[in-house]
């Protein structure tokens, strides 16, 4: 028998010992970061960067496969007891010797997770991790000239790149409201002092928003540069237009932080994605009824919110709890009770 087969036999036996739990349920108690466990990380430190941004140092579990500069990682954090998932760019270099990774988080107004991470996260806390992903990364062949065009927390994936790979000729144009809002400012200025970077800071509170046409003056050779841009949609749209008009769209790489825009309304178009049905629903009718009337096979039980026999994944959009008025927005892993939830705007129910 091969050793793999032997191991799987042993594991089966172990499962018989621990049933109905799994051996991992016990191993998680002592070693949540071990190889083979669901991927997790432990927060080891939180370093403030600006008044509303902080870098979180994470020791990833053994299953972490590393990242490429510029990629992001999804993390699951328990905020007020509720697990919420968000994506953040990895800001540490890929060759960090202690194996830790960092993400840098800017607290956005009303951002549940970002505010929690920046202001309340404490070392020692376990978080859930996904493997790093994203194709906002540097190419294998080194470009001779590079431009980084960033705004606000759009600097975070670029910082991962800057720290990871040195280029001969790097220019950065970064926008932030005021000097003290520039994340990583000291480090950027050190790079400038070491002649590793040419930096232009645009302080939008005093200078106004960056007009993309100003690039000609700020970085005269911008069109010859391989460019990575990350920031709010307005900036990126303008950049894409600018690069296309100039006939060099292939030189521009953009990363959009997709804020989840959920319009919580009253009723809306309900999609039952597994069956491919779409119907209009008002804001008062339980989704269970909506589905059944549309001929979708909906699991149900008590029909009054007590048996949890109707829970179904909410894939997109938002729903309102008919008892409390509470809005639940779609996020990976979010399940709703269809018998007491109604459409709060367009939504997608996995049935």
């Amino acid at each position, binding site marked *: 028998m091969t050793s793999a087969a032997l191991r799987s036999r042993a594991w089966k*036996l172990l499962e*018989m*010992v*621990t*049933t*109905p*739990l799994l051996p991992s*349920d*016990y191993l998680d*108690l002592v070693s949540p970061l071990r190889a083979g466990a669901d991927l997790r990380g432990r927060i080891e430190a939180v370093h403030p960067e600006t008044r509303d941004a902080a870098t979180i140092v994470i020791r990833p579990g053994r299953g972490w496969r590393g990242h490429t500069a510029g990629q992001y990682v999804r993390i699951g954090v*328990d905020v*007020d*007891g*509720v*697990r*919420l998932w968000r994506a953040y760019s990895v800001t540490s270099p890929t060759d960090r010797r202690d194996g830790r990774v960092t993400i840098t988080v800017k607290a956005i107004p009303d951002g549940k997770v970002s505010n929690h991470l920046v202001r309340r996260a404490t070392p020692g806390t376990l978080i859930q991790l996904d493997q790093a992903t994203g194709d906002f990364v540097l190419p294998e062949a080194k470009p001779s000239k590079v431009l980084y065009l960033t705004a606000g927390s759009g600097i975070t994936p670029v910082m991962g790149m800057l720290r990871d790979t040195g280029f001969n000729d790097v220019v950065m144009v970064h926008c932030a409201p005021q000097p003290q809002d520039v994340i990583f400012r000291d480090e950027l200025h050190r790079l400038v002092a070491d002649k590793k970077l040419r930096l232009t800071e645009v302080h939008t509170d005093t200078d106004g928003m960056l007009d993309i046409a100003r690039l000609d003056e700020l970085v005269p050779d911008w069109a010859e540069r391989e460019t990575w841009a990350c920031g709010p949609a307005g900036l990126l749209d303008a950049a894409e237009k600018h690069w296309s008009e100039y006939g060099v769209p292939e030189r521009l790489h953009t990363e959009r932080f997709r804020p989840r825009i959920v319009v919580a309304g009253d009723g809306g178009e309900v999609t039952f994605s597994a069956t491919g049905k779409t119907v209009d629903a008002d804001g008062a009718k339980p989704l269970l009824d909506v589905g059944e009337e549309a001929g979708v096979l909906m699991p149900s*039980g*008590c029909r*009054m*919110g*007590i*048996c*949890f*026999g109707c*829970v179904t994944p909410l894939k997109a959009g938002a729903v309102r709890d008919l*008892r*409390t008025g*509470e809005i639940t927005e779609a*996020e990976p*892993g*979010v*399940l709703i*009770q269809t018998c007491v939830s109604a459409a709060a705007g367009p939504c997608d129910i996995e049935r």
Partner: protein
Amino acid sequence: MTAIDPTAHLTAEQIEELGRELDAIRDEVIAGRGEKDAAYIRKVISAQRKLELVSRGVLLFSIFPPAWVIGTAGLSVAKIMDNMEIGHNILHGQWDWMRDPKIHSTTWEWDHVSPADQWKHSHNELHHTYTNVIGKDNDLGYGIMRVDEDQKWHPFHLGQPLWNFINACFFEYGIAAYDLELGKNLNKRRRKNPEFRARAKAVGRKIRKQVLKDYVIHPLLSGPSFLPTLAATFTANLVRNLWTHSVIMCGHFPEGVQVFERRSIRGETRGQWYLRQMMGSANISGSKAMHFMTGNLSHQIEHHLFPDLPSNRYAEVAVKVRALFDKYELEYVTGPLPKQVFSAWRKVFRLSLPNKKPKVETPAHEQELVAA
């Protein structure tokens, strides 16, 4: 269906007002759910796992009597924790709001021969929706007992104290059979129903795994302690079964608890539904440890009003609920465990016999009967 309806003094408006007041209690808890509650259930789960591990570890040496005693006691408590404060409550969806897929009603499985999904159906759905409605809520007597004067007596019921005792000893199997609705499904035609067969198979699989673990694998691992370990796991299962059975009996059987007729729930409003839960359940009073070991089902009334609120909150909810009982002049049935168990058993014995000839009823009483 008691001769005198203990809620007769309430007007329809009062009942709806009561419903609104209960909704407010519920909303308050939901708004306040948070980190502390999450930490609580995680702590309980981790404690249960550690206790089970240590107890099973000690049982490897159960050939030595002190090890047997300690290991058996620990395992019994671990099994009770698994079934009561953890399993029962997670399967009610009490912790779904945490969005932790590992502590979720859709993924949890418990140390019990009834598979979680089947139990959820018969318990969460049938029992909790139709609480104490004769003919709809099979928890009333589990289909083998007569628990109300108005149920028809049959000579079979003469043996019900014995059936109940046997059921108590093998309670988890009783529940599995009950979840399968064995009585109803064993006739020739229904036996072949593919849906029933699939469910029966699932129960078979679960039983096999559970039995293999408790009565083969762990004893084998114990080597020379094979027999003592076997006896220990048997004892722990027995203790767990007797305990859970007693707690469950206290929930709806003690004297003072009302049962309802099928037709009484037609068109039931939210307020009336709440009222039925209030009148159809009974609590157990006692210490914190006692509440914990019952999985907070000692707060059965609160649990039936709000089956999906986190169990660690029932104690604080109980204070407010009890105030409502007083306000609306309703009887809050509660008492210490021995008293409630005794009361429930007395009923089992009493109803094993046909009803005593009714005393000569006063006309006034008869009128009330009609009115009720």
